[in-house]
């Protein structure tokens, strides 16, 4: 137990979450070590999105612990979450780009505004990241002028501007047209291939099979099964996971 | 502050409130009829009808209520029409409410998808029955909140009657203040006008609660 604590970047212990009197997370025990790529799967309403949002401090929790490098962070004030969030990037289902800013400003605004980067350095990094996601030349466009897939690629690199240690992806392709899902998944695979610790909530089984080091399967607010993709997709232990896989293939 | 003044004039204020209610109810009813008629006419395909209707609606919406009221009260005699303060106020609010309501109804009708009309036509229904039975019900339900807002304004606008001499709440306040300052000295404007503000405020709360109830009721009957 203590040994694990040292290598886990993020760990949750018995995490519980209520919306009013309605409980949505029933004691989630989870950990991710550096360089790991974990895909969280589960049917809608299983609590997977809520769970990943807890890890970014966007949801309050009512029981258990969230640890970042062994330090409890679940009870931090909003002010203390702020520096942490720069180390834990988050990508949302619906991109959530700032609609009134150009692509370049979307990328540079937060780091420059918060005094973490000089404007020139931020722009340089932004352009390099845009190059990497094949969006060089779009830096002066507004989000509304881009396709959904392009917007999500911008959102991904926006959250990577400050070189986070961990990336959280909350169903990054659910809001996309089928033809653009592939390009976004390829980008995520590329960006995380160099050992960027990442937690990805998705329904894309092919992506999970190819890219995940580990699959975590959630059902009814609990983790009911986890293991390597081969194990999970070929011989899952639980009946729930079996029927989930059957319905998603 | 002198609350006895309010109590002493209880009956006078009640009668004045009665006038306000009469103005409100009469003009709301008339405005509703005008809204439906002109709102519908503003959506007909025939430009010869639609354009003049829309222009009239626009003009009535663009001039201040009080100007319309003065026009009706002071200007109508030139047309051979002599109206008392009460009739003039009711006519003014009816026309103003009718024009604004017509714009709301027009918006509602235009928001009904075109295929509703076409599919009803393919069932062999005539234009008029399609409009009354299919289009209007769908058009009106979503515009209830906007129409409720209009009723709220109409309620507030009953106070304009004071400017042409209807003894509604505001005018009754003015009279009570004048009498009090004549017989007792001082000017109890704060107390009396404050009281009238409170009366309007409470009436507004009651009306909004009523409208919400109505909306819930209609909402329930539409879901099944």
């Amino acid at each position, binding site marked *: 137990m203590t040994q694990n604590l040292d290598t886990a970047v993020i760990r949750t212990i018995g995490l519980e979450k209520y919306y009013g009197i309605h409980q949505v997370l029933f004691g989630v025990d989870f950990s991710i070590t550096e360089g790991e790529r974990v895909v969280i799967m589960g049917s809608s309403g299983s609590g997977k999105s809520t769970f990943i949002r807890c890890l970014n*401090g*966007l949801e309050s929790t009512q029981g258990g612990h969230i640890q970042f490098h062994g330090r409890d962070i679940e009870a931090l004030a909003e002010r203390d*979450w*702020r*520096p942490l969030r720069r180390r834990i*990037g*988050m990508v*949302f289902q619906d991109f*959530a*780009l*700032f*609609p*009134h800013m150009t692509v370049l400003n979307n990328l540079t*605004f*937060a780091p420059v*505004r*918060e005094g973490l980067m000089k404007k020139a350095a931020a722009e340089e990094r932004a352009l390099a990241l845009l190059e990497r996601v094949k969006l060089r030349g779009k830096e002066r466009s*507004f989000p*509304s002028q881009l396709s959904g897939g392009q917007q999500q690629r911008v*959102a991904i690199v*926006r*959250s990577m501007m*400050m070189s986070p240690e961990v990336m959280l992806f909350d169903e990054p392709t659910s809001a996309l047209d089928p033809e653009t899902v592939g390009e976004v998944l390829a980008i995520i695979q590329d960006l995380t291939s160099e050992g960027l610790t990442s937690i990805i909530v998705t329904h894309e089984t092919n992506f999970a099979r190819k890219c995940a080091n580990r699959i975590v399967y959630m059902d009814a607010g609990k983790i009911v099964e986890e293991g390597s993709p081969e194990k999970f997709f070929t011989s899952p232990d639980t009946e729930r996971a079996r029927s989930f896989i059957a319905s998603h293939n | 502050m002198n609350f006895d003044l309010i109590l002493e004039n209880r009956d006078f204020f009640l009668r004045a409130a009665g006038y306000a209610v009469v103005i409100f109810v009469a003009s709301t009813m008339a405005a509703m009829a005008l809204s439906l008629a002109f709102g519908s006419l503003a959506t007909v395909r025939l430009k010869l009808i639609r354009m003049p209707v829309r222009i009239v609606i626009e*003009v009535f919406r*663009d*001039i*201040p*209520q*009080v*100007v319309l009221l*003065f*026009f009706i009260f*002071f*200007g109508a*005699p*030139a*047309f*051979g029409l002599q109206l008392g303060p009460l009739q003039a106020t009711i006519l003014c609010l009816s026309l103003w409410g009718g024009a604004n309501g017509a714009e709301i109804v027009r918006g509602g009708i235009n928001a009904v998808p075109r295929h509703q009309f076409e599919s009803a036509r393919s069932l062999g229904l005539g234009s008029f029955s399609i409009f009354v039975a299919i289009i209007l019900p769908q058009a009106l339900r979503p515009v209830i909140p906007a129409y409720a807002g209009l009723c*709220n304004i109409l309620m*507030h606008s*009953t*106070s304009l009657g*004071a*400017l042409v001499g209807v003894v509604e*709440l*505001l005018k009754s306040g*003015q009279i009570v203040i004048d009498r009090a300052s004549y017989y007792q000295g*001082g*000017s*109890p*404007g*704060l*107390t009396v*006008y*404050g009281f*009238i*503000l409170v009366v*309007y*405020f409470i009436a*507004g709360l009651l009306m909004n609660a009523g409208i919400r109830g109505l909306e819930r009721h209609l909402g329930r009957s539409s879901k099944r």
Partner: protein
Amino acid sequence: MTGIAIDWNYFWSVAPLFLRGLELTLVLCLVCNGISIAVAYVLATILYFRTPVLCQLIRAYVSLIRNTPMLVQLFFFYFGLPEIGVAASPLISGIIVLTVWATAYQTENIRGAIEGLPPRLTEAGRSLGLRPGGLFVFVIAPVATRTVVPAMMNTIISATKNSALLSSIGVMELTYVAMDNIAESYRSMENFLALLICYLTIVMGLSAIVTLLERHLGRGYRR
């Protein structure tokens, strides 16, 4: 039916008076709407940050103004407040009441626009580590401003039309000029025609500005 005939000589003779009334109405429109929009942004900011006590006070103020007639508010201020020693000239009273009235509506407009923004916008800002102040000033407020423009212009137009009520306490704006002329000359048609032209020009001018603004703000933004 003789009364309906327009005496054009008279009509043109009162034009200078109307121009002066028009000037005051436009000044009222500019001053009251300008101040009310600026103050409404401040109040909406306080509401957004849920500043205790102030927040409740603002809500009470907005609800009180929006649920009572402006004419009664005007009489309360102009004829009522002298009872406790607060008195101002008709013009100043009119400006104050109209501004206070418009501010309540504009505050509600801005609050509604902010509340209507997708919650994801705030979350995205938070997850990027932006402080609430920067997030509000550079993201929430500008994005809400784009959606609030139609409602805001409606209130501006309503406030401008409501400036006609100030004639009842003796502010010499357009309506006052017209009614004063009628009382003096008994020529109602000419004066009402002039009044109609003035108000239609103002309101249609404002509506044209709305259309232009919407087109401008919509650039590079709308989906």
